[in-house]
């Protein structure tokens, strides 16, 4: 007996009226019911971090929330980063610093880092290493991810952005 219900999700400023089973994870709802496949599912039990998104600004694993828990929350996914044809500066920094190889983990890393830097800008080297240990990159691109974040942080402080 599947508990199906109507639900409204707000993702990247857009409203999605969907109908799904209570057991459907937020990650699956975003991909299958809202059509936003930039959020990737890897392990589906909270270990790999590929499905990291922002919920009310917090980076969270979307495979460890049920979609029904996200009603009324402000959800942000990788699709919400670019403005038209202009990539988010952290996305561009990932390209410029070769911070991705296969790219499967990239959306999760981007959302993790953007969410974490909004909470605590300019992390120490140790704090940054600790942060990106949250997510798995099987191409082992961590060093270049750190370089991309450092460039992004330097650019932010030059421009006086918070």
């Amino acid at each position, binding site marked *: *007996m*599947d*508990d199906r*219900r109507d639900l409204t999700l707000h993702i990247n400023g857009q409203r999605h009226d969907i109908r799904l*089973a*209570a*057991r459907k*994870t937020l990650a*699956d709802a975003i991909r299958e019911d809202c059509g936003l496949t930039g959020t990737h599912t890897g392990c*589906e*039990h*909270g*270990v790999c*971090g590929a499905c*990291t998104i922002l919920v009310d600004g*917090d*980076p*969270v*694993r979307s*495979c*460890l*929330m*049920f979609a*029904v*828990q996200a009603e009324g929350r402000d959800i942000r996914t990788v699709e919400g980063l670019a403005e038209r044809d202009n990539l988010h500066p952290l996305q561009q920094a990932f390209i410029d610093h070769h911070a991705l190889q296969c790219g499967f983990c990239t959306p999760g890393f981007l959302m*993790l880092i953007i969410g*974490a830097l909004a909470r605590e800008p300019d992390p120490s080297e140790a704090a940054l290493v*600790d*942060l990106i*240990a*949250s*997510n798995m990159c099987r191409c082992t691109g961590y060093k270049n991810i750190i370089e991309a974040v450092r460039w992004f942080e330097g650019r932010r402080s030059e421009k006086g952005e918070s």
Partner: protein
Amino acid sequence: MKPAPFTYHAPALLEDALAILGDTAQDDGRVLAGGQSLVPMMALRLAQPAHLVDIGRIDGLGDLIEDSAGLTIGALVRHQRFHAPVVEGVLGRLLRYVSSHIAHLPIRLRGTFCGSLANADPASEWCLVAATLNARMTARRRGETRVIAAADFFDGVMATALSPDEILTGVQIPHPLPGTKVGFYEFSRRAGDFALAMSLVSYRIEGGVVTDPRIGLGGVEEYPRRIAQAEEIVAGQPLESDVLERTAEATAAAIAPLVDHHTSAAYRRDLARIAVLRAFARAAQGEPADG
């Protein structure tokens, strides 16, 4: 890797949550708080509750209350809340340091202190804190509230004194007495991974000797607990290396370690011994941690 079907309940009032849980506990109704342990278990189909009672929309459960008796941590207080000290003094610093050992930021932003206790994983840092610092657990069911002492709370691997229709609504940690020193040490193979051994110690020095020693050990046995045989050795003694060696060895001798394919009992005993020594070393430095 998809959870089995369940009926979802999201009451706005604690009383309603208790009523729903009372009605569904016999049918494997479960409380959903942060979901960072329960949801993975559901994804792996190790847990297949027929009902989930989501307490995430209940006002007031996210409160942290400090009064003369101690710090009371509500059912929806998340791990990351402790990242900035929530109380002055050694307790706030300890909770901050311990919280940094729990998984990673996205998990810490969702998972809850009380949820960790109710889940009672042997490697849970918060369970060790509760056991060592004599926390008091408030459990509520429909029409009944009771307080459970830490020494009576843990009951086995992921087993507690909570009955299926009870919600752990709050945990109170008593204030440490002035002059209390605490130290925490955890060994795990990877940052954020499960602890293979961890120790939390607290004591005061009065008249040059150790007073009110508490030696907690977690991640080694079925559940974290204070090791009375070790506390007896250090109590009333000066804090000297030979005393601490004997205390650590008594810890290793007193325990029944968990074993698995990677860790033998002898290995875990040795980790326990080292964890106690390093926890004492950190306490003696006057900070819970060197980090």
